[in-house]
C-alpha cells in the first residue's frame, strides 16, 4: 500500500465516539434546519408519549411544587367565582 493511500479507520477508533454526544447542541447546529428541529421535537414527543403515556405538567415555584394544569384551573375557577359575585 502506498504511503499516500488512506488507511481505513480501525474498529477500535470507529467505536471511540465522544463520551457524551452533544445531541442538543447538534440539533441546534447547521446540520438541522429549523423545520427539521420542529419535526424532531414533535417525533420525540410522539415516541415518548407512546412509550410512557402522558405525564402531569409541573412547574417549579418558590417554596412548593404545583401542577400547572391545576394552577390554571384554580385561577380560572376563582375568576369565574369572582365574576358570579
Amino acid at each position, binding site marked *: 500500500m502506498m504511503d499516500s493511500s488512506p488507511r481505513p479507520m480501525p474498529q477500535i477508533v*470507529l467505536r471511540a*465516539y*465522544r463520551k457524551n*454526544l452533544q445531541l442538543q447542541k447538534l440539533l441546534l447546529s447547521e446540520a438541522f434546519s429549523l423545520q427539521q428541529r420542529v419535526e*424532531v421535537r414533535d417525533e420525540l414527543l410522539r415516541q415518548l408519549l407512546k412509550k410512557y403515556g402522558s405525564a402531569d405538567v409541573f412547574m417549579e415555584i418558590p417554596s412548593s411544587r404545583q401542577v400547572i394544569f391545576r394552577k390554571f384551573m384554580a385561577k380560572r375557577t376563582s375568576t369565574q367565582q369572582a365574576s358570579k359575585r
Partner: protein
Amino acid sequence: MTVPDYGGEESVSRELAAVMQPYWFRWWGRFSWGNFRDVVDWKGVVQLVLGGGQRLWISAQFARSVIDNAAGPIRADCISAIETSEEYAKSPSGIIRDRMNKIKQKLEPYTGEMNTDSELAIAASWYLLASNANLALAYSAESAVLSGQSYDYLARLAKQLITPTLITLPSRGVR
C-alpha cells in the same frame, strides 16, 4: 413534563438520538466543502459527535493524501508523524504523546513560510502533532488543500472513513 417522567436523561437521550439519526445520516451523506469556512463549520458540527481519536484519524488521512509532495529526507519524518498520530488515535498514551512531541520539534523548522507544496504537505503532518484534534482536523485539511489536494476529495475521504451513528452506548461503543 420532566425528563424523569420519561425514564430519565439517558432514556430520553436514546429516544432523541433515534429520532435525529435519519436526519443526521442525510446531512452526513450530503455535506460538501468549497472553502476553508465550510471545513471549519463542518468541524464545529462533527466535534459534537466524533471522539478525539476519530477526528485525529481523519486528519491523518488528509495529511497522507499529500505526503508525496513532501520533498527530501523530511518525508520519512512526515510519515512518522502520520503513523504515530494513527497509533495515538487507536490508543492514546503519554509515551506516544512524547514521541509525537519529538517529531513535532523535528518537523517545525521545515514548515518554513508554508509557501511551497512541500512545506504545506509537511505542515499537514505537523498539525497532527498539536495536542488538539480540532486544530488537526481543520488545519491538516487546509494545508492539504493548499498543497494541491481538493476539498471535494477530502470531504469524500471523510465520508469513506466513517458514517457516524448517534446511537452509542455510555461506554462509547456502538449499540
